[in-house]
Each structure stands twice: as C-alpha cells, then as structure tokens.
C-alpha cells in the first residue's frame, strides 16, 4: 500500500524544537558555481561568517542546473536536518518553492536570495526565515537613468537582456522601461538576450553595432558580465563614444568605471549576501532570534543598494565584510523595506 511519507522520516516542521547548541549547527551555502567572481565571493563571505562563529560552511554548487540544485537539496534534507541552516541562491523563480517546501517539511532553516515567485508569501512558512533580494526594477531604472544622463538625455540605446525566464532579468528590464518612459528622448533601438554571458554579449553587441551603427549612443546591460562583453565589442569596433551600464558591481566593472570606459553599475554585495543568509539562520537556530519575532517586513526584503558611478566608485573597490552586519540584532540592518 501507499503511505504519505518514507518511514523513519525526518524532523517535521518543528520551529518550537529546542534551540541548537552553536557547535551542532550545520551551515550550507549554495550558489550556481564557483567559476564566476560574484558567486565565489558569496561563498567566501559565507566562510567568513562561519569562521566568525567557529563553524565551517559546506559549499555547494550546481552548475546553474535547476534539476541538480533540487537533487542536491533533497539529498541534503534527507540527512540530519535538525540544526541545518541553508543560505540558497535558487537558480530561477520556479526553483524556490520546492526548496522551501522541502526545508519546511524537514525542519531546516532556510534563507533564499534573488529569486522568488512574486505570489509566494514567505510568512506562510515557519522554516523559511527570510528572502533577500535587490530591487531589480529599481536597479534597472537607476542605470537606465544614469545611461540617459550620460548620453545627454537623448539618442539611441540598445538593451542586453539576461536569461529570459528569470525574475531578475524581467525586473531589470521593467526598470529600463520605466526609465525610458521618463526619458522620452531616449530611444530603445533594439533589445536582445545575451543570457547574462560575457561571451554572448560580445557577439550580440557586435551585430547590433553593425545594424544600428552610429545611432547607438548607449548600451544598457542587465548585468556587468554582459556590460563587459559589450565593452569588448566596442573596443573591437573602435568605438569609444558609447556609454555602457550594468548591474552587480563585479570588480572588473568597478575598474572599468574607474577607467572611465563604463558609466554606471549597481552594487550587489556578494560577501555580505553569503554571510547574511547564514547569519539569520544561525541566530534562529541557536535561539538568539525567535522566528516569530521577525517582523513580516523582514521576511522578504530588499537589501540596500547603491548606484555606482565614477563619483563614488572608490568606496566600493575593496569591499570588506563587516562582522557587525552579522550580529543577531543587526541582521536586518540593510533592509530597504519589504518586497511589495
């Protein structure tokens, strides 16, 4: 016959379970891969936090493969989950829910970042402590505005979209559309996807450069990798009159802003993101912070972000992990408000 659950099943959604001893807590950070600087720095931030509390972080990567991410997580949740803290970067919006449900059932403490379907409510779950993201619409608009300003308020631009079926790509593009509405004289000549990839951005930009030629005054890219690809394309085309903006504040983009080849980017703080998720989970697991006490506004929130241009780029070139950010009474200090 059939039964609901594998016998000997796990912890069950027990948030009222007695607090874990700090040394019993298992910390897991999971990102797509360690072969890009942003996500590598995320995991390093996680390690830094783990060291701070005398633990070790288990570093997981899933090669940007949704199924592999789910597979790893269900395997993880099949182990000992009593004091398991997970700081997860879901591959796409659709990957968040199964992770959440799995953690809820197994009783693991979960913080997610970046991707979450808009209609899923974090407060509906006990074990899903918080979802942190940056306001993509905001950042898309900020760099859109910066781009408009850089080209003098009028002229043609092209847009490089991210992976089309991710929330980040859509939000950022929506931000660009808002910005375009406000800057009526800026014309979107073309938009293509380059899948967040530097290499694809290079060839797409080259093609668009030949298609639109001198009409292009600016390039809006949904992340810095693509912006850097676009910069390479511009260099190869011998064009130095095109403004380029991106998002993420990866080190190379900051350098480019310092050099003046790139106009603007928006900060996302990888090391902080890697640490903060674990910190929230750790605080709840050890009982220093009660899940019930986290206000609804702090269950799903936008983290503080900054538009970086050559005015303020110096402040961001050497990011430091501030241990104080990870104190239990301080973990929500960077909140810019709840995700509406």
């Amino acid at each position, binding site marked *: 016959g059939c039964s609901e659950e594998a016998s000997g099943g796990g912890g069950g959604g027990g948030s009222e379970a007695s607090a874990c001893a700090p040394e019993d807590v298992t910390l897991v950070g999971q990102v797509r*891969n*360690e*072969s*890009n*600087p942003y996500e*590598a*720095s995320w995991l*390093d931030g996680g390690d830094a936090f783990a060291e701070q509390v005398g633990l070790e972080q288990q570093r997981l990567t899933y090669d940007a493969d949704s199924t592999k991410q789910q597979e790893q997580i269900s395997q993880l949740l099949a182990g000992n989950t009593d004091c398991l803290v997970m700081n997860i970067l879901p591959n796409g919006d659709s990957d968040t829910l199964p992770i959440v449900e799995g953690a809820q059932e197994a009783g693991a403490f979960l913080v997610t970042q970046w991707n979450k379907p808009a209609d899923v409510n974090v407060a509906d779950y006990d074990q899903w402590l918080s979802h942190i993201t940056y306001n993509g619409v905001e950042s898309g608009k900020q760099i859109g505005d910066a781009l408009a300003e850089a080209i003098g308020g009028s002229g043609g631009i092209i847009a490089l*979209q991210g992976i*089309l079926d991710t929330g980040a790509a859509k939000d950022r593009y929506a931000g660009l559309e808002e910005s375009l509405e406000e800057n009526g004289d800026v014309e979107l000549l*073309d*938009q*293509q*996807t380059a899948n967040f*990839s*530097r*290499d694809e951005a*290079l*060839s*797409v930009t*080259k*093609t*668009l*450069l*030949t*298609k*639109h*030629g001198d009409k292009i005054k600016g390039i809006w890219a949904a992340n810095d990798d693509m912006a*850097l*690809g676009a910069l*390479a394309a511009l*260099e*190869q085309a*011998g064009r130095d009159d095109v403004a380029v903006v991106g998002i993420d504040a*990866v*080190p*190379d983009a900051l*350098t480019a802003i310092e050099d003046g080849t790139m106009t603007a980017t928006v900060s996302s703080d990888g090391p902080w993101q890697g640490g903060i998720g674990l910190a929230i989970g750790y605080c709840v697991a050890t009982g220093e912070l009660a899940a019930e006490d986290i206000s609804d506004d702090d269950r799903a929130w936008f983290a503080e972000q900054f538009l970086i241009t050559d005015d303020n780029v110096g402040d961001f070139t050497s990011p430091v992990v501030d241990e104080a950010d990870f104190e239990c009474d301080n973990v929500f200090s960077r909140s810019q408000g709840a995700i509406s």
Partner: protein
Amino acid sequence: MSLGDAGPPIALVVIIGIFSLLSPDFRTIANLQNVMDAAAVLAVATCGISFVLMMGSIDLSVPGVMGASAIAVALLVANNRNDNDLGLLGVLVAVLLGAALGCLSGMALVSLKVPSFMTTLGVSAVGLGIATLMFSGVQPNISDAMLRGWAVNRFLGLAYLTWIALGCVLVGWLIQRYSRLGRYAYAIGGAEEVLALSGVKVAPYKVAVFTLAGSFYALAGVMVTSQLSAGLVQAGKGYDFAAITAAVVGGTLLTGGRGGVLHSAVGVLLVIVLQNGLVQIGVSPYWQGGVQGLIVVAAVSAAVLPQRRRNQVTK
C-alpha cells in the same frame, strides 16, 4: 565535388540572398566583416571537431578544453593575478594544455575502449574542474598587448583573430588532404577494421586526432580570452553543440568518413549568418533559437532530399 557536397554551399548562398533582400543592414560591408569576425572562434573549434567527426567519433570536450585554456592563457600572459608575462609562449602552453586534454580523451578511448562520447564528456568535466581550480575566485584579466591586439587590430578589414581562424582552416585543410594523419582519420571513419587488416595500427592515429582537435579547441579558448580580455571558465560554453551543428550542417556525417574542414567552414558560416541575419531582420529573441533550428533542419533536408534513396540508411 559531388552534388551532395554542393548542398550546404548552395544553402549558404540562398540564405545570404534572402537576408540581403530582407534587410539592408545585413548586406553592408561592415556586417560582412562582422559575420567573419563572429565566425572566427567557432571556425577554429569546428576545425578541430571535424577531424574527430570524420573518424566517426564524437567530441563533447570542447567546453572543458576551451575553459581550461582560456584561464591558463589568462594566467600566463600579463594579467592582474600574477606577474607572469610569457606572451606567445603562454599561448603555446595553453594550446599544449588543450592538446594534453585531447590526448587524454584519445587515450581513454583506445586503451579503456570507452566510446568517445563518454571519454570526451568526462574530459570536459575534468577540464572545467581544472579551470575552476586555476580560477580560484578571482577573475584573471589580461593586459598583454599582443593578445588583446588580436581582437582589436585589423588587417584588410578583418580582425587578426579572423585571419588566425582562416589560417586554421587552411592548415586543417592541408592536414586533411596532405597528411597521413588526416587521410587516416578519414579512412578510420570509412572502414576502421580494414585499416587493421592492412597492418595499420589505428590507435595512435586516433589519439593523435583527439590531440590535434584538443589543440584547436585550446586555440579557440585563447581567442575567446583575447576577445574578452579575460579568462573565463565558461569560455567554451555552448561551443560543443555549436561546433557539431556547424559540422553537420556543412555536410559532415556523424557516422564518419565524409565531410571535412572545408565543409565545416561552410557550416560555420551558415550558422553564424543565420544568427546574425535573424538579429538583423529583427526576429524576436524568444523565437530566434526556434527559427534557427527550423532553418537548420530545412537546410539539411534540402541538401539530402535530392540524393535520397529507397534503402538509404539514416541514423
């Protein structure tokens, strides 16, 4: 050249014709240059894979080899991570690394008797692993003037990289036509068992072909690094299927024994022209992949239809 070989070039001409009619932007000299430049990396990778496909084997190690060589070269020439400044020697070492990985595929194929599908898939993972180890969290950017210049400087309107790719196609063609290695690769695809009956030891040639292919992929990885001024672990992402597609579209049979470097060059142009043309005529990015797939199938069927036979074997 038989009629079968003429199919892909005709398809290429037809597709260029159609795009030229549909889009004035497409038929500019600048865009022609752009197409040639955009084809450079894929052409070099496809050159390598052609030899493997000619033998009837397959090679999925492209992403791994390209990634490893891209990072390797970025760390060997002048860069922001260390004090190396090996210049051309660095490029050579990266290519040798690719050759070694290719050699590994070949050795596993002939000594363990594991199909190339698996050995190369394995080697791709190994290559990516090595690349990730070398990457170790910090993006290597190159400042080497020569390597950066390859992507930027032009000769007769084409980037140096494009000339390098043309050189590779020429060398590949010469190898295929005039070297024992190339002819034997072709023969292995035709009838491997017969070579053994004639007293030819095929194993060393197979290993050599994979080694040669590995060097081509590695050079392609170096070229990506030159274009992006940075060594990326993902430098070869997607180039495996793109290269196989280009070779197949160009008329190389996956069962081996037919096609070659020139066929592949035509295939590469077909694929790149399609990519470029669809952007130029403004097909929605959502649909581009699908339209491309449709045209590839149509082009191949148009090429095979005239020579289809009743009892023909299609795999």
